[in-house]
């Protein structure tokens, strides 16, 4: 009954109350009726471990009922049940929440009902409340939210010490200063206040106030050395003292609890914020997963595996994350089976100490995380982990959507770019063709002198060379486009690349001198040789045609860190800073007299960047321009003994 196209998603909250079974059954009924997905959520709090046997059995029973009906069973961790429910509901696109009527609200300060809290967090979700009529049944649930404190020796000593000090002060006031004994009461009140604020728990304050009252009655109030009270006003004083003690104790305890909660909340917020920020800064899915893994590792401090899944459920990428993040290239059969199991059941899978936790998005499971030592995590860590995993799941989906969107955008850009290209092409191809046809026709129909014919023919030759270069660039562009930049990279010798490029440069057409610096003849780059050769051809041709007054063109290549730096320099007029910025743009042509599609440098940039290199242009010293680009270097190690076979 679980299928992805179902839109409704019902969440039922599990707990250990006997009435919960009714809630679960109602949810199952509703899910069946609406043909909706059903998830049963249990929020583990610090009291879960303290549940009695009966409650545990009830809880397990409820889980079983939900499971049998085909519900997802999910556990989150946290003391604020409403918050946990609503957080889960948000990330899992829950449309309806079904919840039992709980018996809260009979404590000193009436807390908000769970339902009201959830509604606060999630105003848009439908909530069904299943009433719970049998009061007696709910007894086992009654003790549930009571706070448990351990008796602390330090606190006891502190309480006794304060009472002692109060009593001593009382003696001093009575015997030495002869003040009215009622003043002593204030010392006790002060003492009780101190006890309440400095100890953990109401109990010390209350015990302290009772002690104080007894000692006061016994030692100071008339008749002395007896628990009888003579004056009525003394009785009122004592009662007020008790009330003050109880009220202050309760208040301070609550303030402390709130403070604790604030601290954990702010820790939680800061961790989630950090993750969120890191995710937002990532440029692509893989980067995002990297940083997310780092953040998760920071929290749980134990190694885990992260599987990113394809839309069809196969593993796209897998990582093992411990101190560092390592890509996994193969999987054990077990591992694959377990992942398939998770995909099929759509539920967390526990194996030994670890578990495979699925990351849900709207479209289903996008990733799976495997934590081998999940039981070593404390509740707060687990709760945070759940929140982080939810965040990562959303981010994965967002990145996938973005990718699709970008794809569409690229397509649009390509269309626009093609249009531009055609416009520019039709104009710029026509110009040299007019020259060629004109000259040829002219030679055919006139009887020119040999000199004139030679002039015209060399014009034809120049124009055709120009056309050839341009067609070459166009073909490379279309190659890059059509093959979606699948580049055939291989280790290649740099001096062979430069030699090859020089073969395609028509040196005889220029009065410029071409120099190649001596290049280390074992220097190698990882490159698609056809493409890199074209980059050098374009840059050298650029220098030949556009460095008007220049005489010398220099080509050099040298190793810089992990790259080989190629540089092509001329001693021409140079390029203005403003034009440098636009040099590498499509259809940018500096020279208005000489036609040019402005494709060459744009193509260079495309090719260099497709090789993970960079290309820049700088001023040459003393004059002219230098084009520099980098291509990743490779070392080829050879072992002749092994390779040679005689």
């Amino acid at each position, binding site marked *: 009954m679980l299928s992805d196209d179902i839109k409704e998603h019902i969440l039922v909250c599990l707990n250990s109350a006997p009435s919960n079974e009714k809630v679960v059954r109602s949810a199952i009924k509703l899910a069946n009726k609406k043909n909706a997905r059903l998830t049963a959520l249990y929020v583990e709090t610090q009291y879960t471990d303290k549940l009695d046997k009966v409650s545990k059995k009830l809880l397990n029973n409820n889980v079983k009922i939900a499971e049998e009906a085909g519900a997802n069973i999910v556990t989150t961790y946290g003391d604020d049940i409403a918050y946990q429910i609503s957080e889960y509901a948000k990330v899992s696109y829950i449309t309806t929440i079904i919840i039992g009527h709980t018996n809260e609200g009979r404590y000193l300060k009436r807390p908000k009902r769970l339902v009201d809290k959830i509604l606060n967090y999630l105003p848009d979700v439908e909530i069904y409340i299943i009433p719970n009529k049998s009061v007696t049944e709910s007894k086992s649930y009654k003790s549930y939210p009571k706070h448990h404190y351990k008796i602390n020796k330090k606190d006891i000593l502190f309480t006794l010490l304060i009472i002692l000090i109060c009593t001593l002060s009382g003696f001093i006031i009575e015997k030495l200063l002869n003040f009215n004994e009622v003043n002593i009461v204030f010392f006790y009140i002060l003492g009780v206040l101190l006890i309440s604020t400095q100890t953990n728990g109401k109990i010390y304050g209350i015990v302290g106030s009772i002690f104080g009252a007894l000692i006061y009655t016994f030692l100071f109030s008339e008749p002395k050395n007896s628990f009888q009270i003579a004056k009525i006003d003394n009785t009122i004083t004592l009662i007020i003292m008790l009330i003050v003690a109880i009220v202050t104790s309760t208040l301070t305890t609550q303030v402390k609890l709130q403070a604790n909660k604030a601290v954990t909340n702010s820790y939680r917020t800061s961790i989630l914020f950090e993750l969120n920020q890191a995710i937002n800064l990532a440029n692509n899915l893989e980067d995002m997963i990297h940083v997310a893994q780092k953040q998760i590792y920071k929290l749980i401090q134990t190694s885990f595996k992260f599987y990113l899944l394809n839309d069809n459920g196969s593993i796209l990428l897998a990582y093992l994350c411990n101190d560092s993040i390592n890509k996994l290239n193969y999987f054990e059969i077990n591992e694959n089976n377990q992942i398939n199991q998770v995909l099929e059941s759509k539920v967390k899978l526990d194996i030994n100490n670890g578990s495979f936790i699925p990351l849900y998005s709207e479209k289903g499971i996008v990733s799976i995380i495997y934590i081998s030592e999940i039981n070593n995590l404390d509740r707060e860590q687990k709760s945070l982990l759940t929140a982080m995993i939810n965040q990562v799941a959303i981010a994965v989906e967002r990145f996938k959507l973005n990718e699709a969107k970008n794809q569409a955008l690229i397509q649009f850009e390509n269309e626009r770019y093609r249009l531009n290209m055609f416009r520019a092409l039709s104009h710029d191809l026509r110009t040299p063709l007019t020259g060629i046809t004109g000259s040829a026709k002219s030679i055919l129909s006139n009887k020119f002198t040999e000199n004139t014919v030679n002039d015209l023919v060399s014009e034809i030759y120049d124009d055709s060379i120009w056309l050839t270069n341009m067609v070459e660039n166009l073909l490379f562009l279309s190659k890059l486009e059509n093959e979606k930049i699948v580049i055939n990279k*291989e*280790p290649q*010798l740099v001096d062979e690349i430069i030699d*090859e490029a020089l073969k*395609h440069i028509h040196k005889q057409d220029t009065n410029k001198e071409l120099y190649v610096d001596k290049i280390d003849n074992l220097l*190698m780059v990882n490159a698609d*040789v056809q493409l890199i050769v074209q980059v050098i051809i374009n840059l050298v041709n650029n220098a030949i045609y556009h460095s008007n007054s220049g005489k010398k063109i220099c080509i050099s290549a040298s190793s810089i860190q992990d790259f080989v730096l190629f540089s092509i320099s001329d001693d021409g007029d140079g390029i203005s800073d403003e034009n440098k910025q636009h040099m590498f743009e499509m259809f940018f042509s500096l020279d208005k007299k000489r036609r040019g599609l402005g494709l060459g440098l744009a193509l260079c940039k495309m090719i260099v960047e497709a090789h993970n290199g960079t290309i820049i242009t700088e001023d040459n010293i003393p004059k002219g321009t230098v084009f520099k680009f980098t291509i990743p270097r*490779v070392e080829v190690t050879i072992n*002749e003994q092994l390779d040679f076979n005689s």
Partner: protein
Amino acid sequence: MNNSILIVEDDISITKFIQATLEANSYQCIMAYSGEEALNYTLTKPNLIILDLGLPDIDGIDIIKKIRLWSKCPIIVVSARWEYLEKIEALDAGADDYMTKPFNIDELMARIRVALRRNNNDITLNDPIFTNGNLKIDYNAGTVEVGNEEIHLTPIEYKVLILLSKNVGKVLTHRTILKEVWVNYLESDIPSLRVFVATLRKKLEIESVKEKYIETHIGVGYKMVKITNADNGE
């Protein structure tokens, strides 16, 4: 007479200018505008074939294979620049050399001369001593000299050099060299081959002689250049 050349090319204007240039250099030309025609004309036993790979009817590679079944006639292939996989295939099928479009007619003439000469001198390749300019290889003694100076080569470098020398003037693809020199070769050995050839070349092309023996055909393979006084390489 051994100067008849078969031009297989479907573009008439290209055929025309090749024909004009060849005839100006006193070669005899036979023109074929399709694969079918080409296979028919090979029966006239031309001394050399210039073959465009992009023919309309038959795949150029198939033509080479068919000719090679019965003829050792030199074949120079013409193809576009980025189709280097096609070039490799053509060379592996038995073509001797290739030209890249658009090509320089002077270069084509030089290649034709080399290929014809190579074909005529076939017998001399069985000589125990090979000389090419200042390079001298004694196959029996296993020694290599450049300008009377003995060069020390590693076993692989020597094997590569011998293979190239026995096919002087012919482009050998990376695959062919790997197959001959490495017995169990992998495509991934090509980068190592590049390094071997680079070191081999460094040893052979010494300052005092200034002759370049090994020519790199990037992405395709290597060729030993026939050094002659007439056209100084090519």
